């Protein structure tokens, strides 16, 4: 079994599905000869041909819209938006059409497709290249929003997303593309969508997170353990629809909830999780829910980005706060 990075696992999942399903087609800016700016699609055009891996004109709205038309005709498009900060021109297609084609035609037309994009900051990228906009998408019924945080989960969740009958927005944390290597078996096995992954079991605090902040969250849990605090770390992974059950079960067990995300706090997905816990498990809580998130500011240029992204120190203080210290 090969050890590989997350971006390599994403590439391998593409290749598996293209080899096993002739309807899978890859499109986007620079996905062909160049193999994607992060190399997620490298080698696919050489292997599967220029018909199945095609560069598109530079227009995100077109990429999203064309993917809808392709999918309605029975092609399974895996389309790349080069950075999540460029998703705005595609929002009309995503919100007005992709999310609601099934509903507005009572199931006559559907658009199963995957729209992949790098998510979040932390790699010293230029302005507009580091955004975390998942809340924008989760607000729209009819979409699935998925965010893997390891090579194994990237492989299994991408396969699940391509095979899913619903449109899936697949967020790839840029900081994690080459962060670690893991053994990933190329066996075509998908992981379940709508399912949280418990990355670390614990008894005192439920630490709910997703995306690149899983890294700092796991580190914080490690350090908190040295202080005698036992944290359960949950990677939400599917942001829409959310597996609230796993989160609620954990909160009932620990009585304390800390939510960590890189996106801005205001109307973030963390607010939805906190509200659901308040509605369904308020009396199981021993202390108030807390959030450690990106600030409600514009994502700064990169010299300040690590002051924006929740740091180990902020998360540790968050853990101490929900412990009542």
């Amino acid at each position, binding site marked *: 079994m090969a050890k590989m990075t997350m971006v390599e696992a994403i590439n391998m999942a593409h290749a598996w599905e293209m080899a096993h399903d002739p309807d899978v*087609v890859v499109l986007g800016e620079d996905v062909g000869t160049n193999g994607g700016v992060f190399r997620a699609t490298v080698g696919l055009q050489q292997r599967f041909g*220029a*018909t199945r891996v095609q560069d598109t*004109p530079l227009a995100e*709205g077109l990429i999203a819209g064309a993917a809808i*038309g*392709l999918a309605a005709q029975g092609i399974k498009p895996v389309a790349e938006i080069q950075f999540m900060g460029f998703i705005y021109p595609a929002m009309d297609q995503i919100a007005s059409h992709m999310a609601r084609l099934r*509903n507005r035609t009572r*199931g006559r037309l559907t658009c199963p497709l995957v729209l992949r994009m790098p998510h979040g900051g932390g790699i010293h990228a230029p302005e507009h290249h580091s955004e975390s906009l998942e809340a924008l998408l989760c607000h729209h019924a009819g979409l699935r929003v998925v965010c893997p945080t390891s090579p194994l989960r990237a492989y299994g969740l991408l396969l699940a997303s391509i095979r899913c009958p619903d449109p899936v927005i697949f967020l790839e944390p840029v900081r994690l593309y080459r962060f670690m290597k893991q053994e990933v078996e190329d066996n075509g096995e998908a992981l379940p969508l709508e399912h949280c992954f418990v990355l670390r079991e614990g008894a005192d605090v439920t630490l709910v997170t997703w995306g690149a902040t899983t890294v700092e969250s796991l580190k914080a849990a490690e350090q908190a353990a040295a202080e005698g605090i036992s944290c359960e770390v949950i990677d939400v992974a599917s942001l829409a629809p959310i597996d609230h059950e796993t989160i609620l079960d954990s909160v009932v067990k620990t009585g304390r909830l800390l939510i960590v995300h890189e996106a801005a706090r205001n109307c973030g997905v963390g607010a939805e999780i906190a509200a659901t816990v308040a509605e369904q498990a308020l009396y199981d809580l021993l202390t108030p829910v807390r959030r450690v998130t990106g600030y409600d500011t514009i994502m700064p240029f990169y010299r300040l980005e690590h002051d924006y992204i929740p740091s180990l120190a902020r998360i540790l203080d968050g853990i101490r706060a929900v412990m009542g210290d």
Partner: protein
Amino acid sequence: MDRSVDPEIAAHHKPGTSTTGDGAEDSAAVTGADGAAASAAASAAASAAAAIPAPAIPAPAMPAAGEARVVARFEIPYRACLDRDGRPLGPLPSFASDVELLRRMYRTMVRARTFDAKAVNLQRTGKLGTYPSCLGQEATHVGVGAAMHPEDVLFTVYREIGTKFWRGVELYSVLMYWGGDERGTIYTRNPQDFPFCVPIGSQLPQAAGAAFAMQIRAERRCTLAFVGDGGTSQGAFYEAINMAGAKALPLVCVIVNNRYAISVPVSQQTAARTLAQKAIAAGIPAVQIDGNDALIVRQVVGEALARARAGGGPTIIEALTYRLGDHTTSDDATRYRSREEVDDAWRAEPIARLRNFLTARGAWNDTEEEALKRACAEEIDAAVKQYLATPKQSTDSMFDYVLAELTPALRAQRDEARRYAQRS
């Protein structure tokens, strides 16, 4: 193959009727540098497994300092078959000898117009929601329908009921749609056709995608997409036609120029002298036609579709027509256009024109006209009855089609909606 030069269009081009006038700076044949690049892209798209070659961009010879030389010229042909009174302007296309086809086109145009008047009345009496009248645009809508093959895929805006009717969409479905019920989008015939599209221009990237799917599978069918004059101002229009040109997609785009986007006339929408010429920037052949002449619509759209199906790439057709009614039942067009203008437009309306043509050929008479009107009225009354008798959907239907399967959270909300469901 240089697909950007259309021999059919070139052959029918009448210099005297070119709408580009004689200004050298904007009179242009779709050839030269753009044509070369487009054919390079077309051949690139055709060679599936090979690496895509970089298209050769010919470098123009350097002019002397301060001089300019023309590097490309373009022109937009204008085509028509009948004059305002239905008299042939010249030799007619061969399909015009198919009297049964012409009679069917005429009947569908009358059917659309009769339905349209009924729908407006239903809205006025509170039995239908906001409705956009197609009055005056029937030749464009039905001409397109008559040119398409069943296996082609149709993307409309929201006014083209003539095309929908031709392709088998039931009157009942259109009433259901504008009557606020999603079941009006369930098409049993041509079920790959997309439903009406309300956000202006946003259907075009999807149409390009559908055409892309046909090209990827090397199918001999194509996509037809309507857009209005206002829709050509949208970025989505440019993005879609640009891709269609770059990849030589089997897409035919019909711009229905009915002169107004609600109240804004085309002259305030763009400085372009034709909307067809917007195709030039995308390297696509374009033609302007008389959209109130059902014969030329059927002919030019048919030529473009045939070329697209054969791998010859996209075409843009600007159909000049006029919206004789209000934008929708919520609009009052007397606020922004004169009585004289509308009266003049009525003199060019498409149904009387085709009836005159058919009558002069002995292919239509008053008895048939009366019978058609009676049949339309009966059919429409039956559809209206069926629509008015259809109970609204259960609240479950709001939840059933959000995703392929109900999620636990949606199931809980569905149950809540059931408890509070309104009876009527």
